[in-house]
């Protein structure tokens, strides 16, 4: 009897191993049909390009004397915002300003000190906003979706706004990832006031722009709390000032706990344009991408200009702000529990978005024989390798400084915090451009073309020739793009090739059902066996 019990228990324990050993050439098991291909529910795909309220936003136009270039993108900038931040929010009629959601203090432009036809006294007000933060079941928070269904938490510098910031309001269009690119002119007297509307301390550090260590009052002006002045506490403000003597593409970011604050989104491009006559620059490029009102020096040499910001997102860091409403708990986890040395990015952003949303905003749209200036900043913690399909651009500047010998490549590596400027020539002769088409433009680190491992995603954008563009700003494409706009796709619930062909072997295999009753039977058997052994043992 004892031997019998022991034998049964051994067979039960070893049975999975035994079954394989009978799988031999001489004695194959009988044919059993694999499960059927599952029907796939791809989920709600939404719009590839959401309908634009005002079609005229895409046109080239003039508002309040500000010339605004056309933008063929699906989601173009609001031309009234472009006009207001160029002219100065203090120089715009109130009715226009109210519609933009900007505060009158967002960018005040003052006197023309050198009498060359443009303002030289620039006062900028920035607030700190949290996106996708903690919210109670009934409360609403300011949200930002980087790709279908994906909402990591972020902190951003936002131009000072007016009114409510929740979804649908005018201000909410301005409070977004990434923080806005700031443009000033060489020798402008720039004052940037940080109004800390957030619940953690912050500062601004101007990376690469010549600025005094302390201001005239002896207060810190470098934004580094350990060496230059105090942190700006919640509810308080501080003004930084500089008068840049060198033009170029620079960087500004928070320097409080920069190992996390920079990556949380408190970083952006700062461009000092060359001193020219009548050069009233577009102070903010909201959301980056195409510059609708390029500076005089760029306008003379190029047909258009783009700002491109790259950064990786480690979900583990960005989800911390969602866990609690208690700032002490959030600080504990961000400052002490999160270990950046174990960082693994899950998402890769271009101008605050991942593919497919990048195509709505950051598509480079060209016509043949054009010159496009592309400024790139890598504000993430990993280097990037930018590759342009169909084109061989020329690198003209690094870290704001002009190269004596421009470098032609089809892959450009950019280190963290580094800026490069590219000259993209769309002349078809093989060297510059291979010809008209819809060409990928992406970071060639393979993980960077995925959203948490599901491709296509990440920082992919396109160089699209106008003749390949549909009216809504989305390129003509043979593939079904609908599935990329469903949250289910990036959760990994949709087979990548499901709609294309051959569902019999490229679709989703069904699962054999394993009735729950078997588990119950196992449990009963286990208990009986245990009881039997125990009974025999203790008897």
């Amino acid at each position: 009897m004892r031997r019998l019990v022991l034998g049964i228990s051994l067979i039960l324990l070893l049975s999975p191993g035994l079954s394989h050993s009978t799988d031999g050439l001489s004695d194959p098991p009988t044919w059993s049909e694999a499960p059927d291909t599952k029907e796939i529910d791809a989920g709600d795909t939404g719009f590839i390009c959401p309908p634009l309220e005002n079609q005229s936003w895409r046109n080239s136009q003039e508002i309040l004397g500000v010339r605004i270039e056309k933008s063929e993108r699906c989601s173009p900038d609001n031309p009234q915002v472009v006009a207001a931040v160029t002219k100065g929010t203090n120089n715009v009629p109130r009715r226009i300003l109210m519609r933009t959601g900007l505060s009158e203090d967002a960018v005040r432009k003052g006197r023309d000190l050198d009498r060359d036809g443009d303002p030289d006294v620039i006062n900028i007000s920035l607030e700190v906003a949290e996106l996708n933060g903690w919210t109670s079941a009934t409360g609403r928070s300011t949200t930002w979706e980087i790709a279908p269904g994906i909402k990591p938490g972020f902190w951003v510098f936002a131009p000072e706004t007016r009114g409510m910031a929740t979804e649908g309001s005018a201000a909410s269009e301005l409070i977004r990832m990434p923080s806005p690119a700031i443009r000033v002119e060489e020798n402008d007297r720039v004052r940037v006031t940080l109004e800390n509307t957030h619940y953690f301390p912050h500062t601004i550090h101007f990376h690469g722009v010549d600025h005094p260590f302390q201001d005239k009052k002896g207060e810190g002006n470098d934004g580094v709390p350990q060496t230059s002045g105090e942190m700006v506490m919640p509810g308080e403000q501080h003004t930084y000032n500089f008068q840049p003597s060198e033009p170029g593409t620079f960087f500004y970011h928070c320097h409080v706990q920069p190992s996390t604050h920079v990556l949380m989104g408190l970083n952006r491009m700062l461009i000092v344009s060359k001193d020219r006559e009548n050069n009233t620059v577009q102070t903010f490029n909201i959301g980056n991408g195409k510059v609708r009102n390029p500076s005089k020096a760029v306008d003379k040499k190029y047909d258009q200009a783009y700002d491109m910001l790259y950064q990786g997102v480690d979900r583990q860091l960005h989800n911390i702000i969602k866990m609690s409403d208690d700032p002490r708990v959030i600080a504990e986890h961000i400052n002490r529990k999160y270990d950046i040395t174990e960082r693994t990015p899950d998402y890769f952003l271009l101008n605050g978005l991942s593919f497919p949303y990048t195509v709505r905003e950051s598509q480079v749209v060209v016509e043949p024989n054009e010159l496009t200036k592309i400024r790139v900043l890598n504000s993430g913690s990993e280097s990037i390798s930018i590759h342009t399909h169909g084109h061989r651009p020329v690198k003209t500047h690094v870290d704001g400084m002009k190269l004596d010998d421009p470098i032609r490549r089809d892959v450009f590596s950019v280190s963290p915090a580094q800026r490069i400027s590219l000259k993209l020539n769309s002349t078809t002769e093989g060297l510059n451009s291979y010809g008209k088409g819809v060409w990928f433009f992406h970071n060639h680190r393979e993980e960077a073309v995925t959203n948490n491992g599901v491709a296509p995603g990440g920082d992919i954008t396109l160089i699209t020739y106008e003749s390949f563009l549909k009216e809504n700003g989305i390129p003509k494409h043979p593939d079904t793009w609908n599935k990329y706009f469903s949250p289910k796709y990036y959760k990994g619930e949709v087979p990548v090739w499901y709609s294309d062909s051959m569902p019999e072997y490229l679709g989703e295999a069904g699962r054999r059902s394993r009735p729950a009753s078997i588990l119950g039977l196992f449990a009963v058997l286990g208990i009986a066996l245990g009881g039997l052994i125990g009974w025999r043992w203790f008897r």
Partner: protein
Amino acid sequence: MKKYVIIGLMLVLTVSVSQAIVMNNNPEELPPGCRKVTGERNLKVHAGTEYAKKFNSKVYTYDQRVYSFEPCTRVTVTLVNNDSIRHQWMIHGLPMETYPMGMFTIEVDGPGQDTGIFIVPNVTETLLLHCGIPQHMQKGMKGMIKINGGDGQISNVPGFTGVRKPYSYEYREKNISLKSSALILASSIVIGLLVSSVFFFRREVEQKEES
């Protein structure tokens, strides 16, 4: 008549202060259900970080967070901002006919104050009061406007109401879940059984050898 002149003057003053904005200011238009203004209320509300200090974990709040108003009362609110940033005193859920988007807002940018007027609708409701700057509501700037006694409570108003799924501070790091406890219990039973059966098997062999 005199009253309207004063109100008119206040309106002009309101608009001329550039650092503040009152949206949907309404000293006159009667909301649906009101046949006349039945009373006057004057309020001074303070906003800022200093009022949040007495609530652990809160960052911003108002000195008053719960208000009781009678229907058809004309309320004159002065918002005093003690911080160097923007704050709002924003009511949601007012009748759309009188208040576009159902809102009444006073916004003050930096230290200072501003005054706005609204007429309470003839309803029995609890309306949401908050600051619309990201996370200010979540971090304490939230309140309730109870009209005619109100028809319920709003969550997460410091000192008054909590949240439905509050953050658990207990055993934060070593929180033992039901699943892991069950797993550990099950695996120990299996291990125990294995050990005892091996032991049993050995005894069996020994007994056999003895015999």
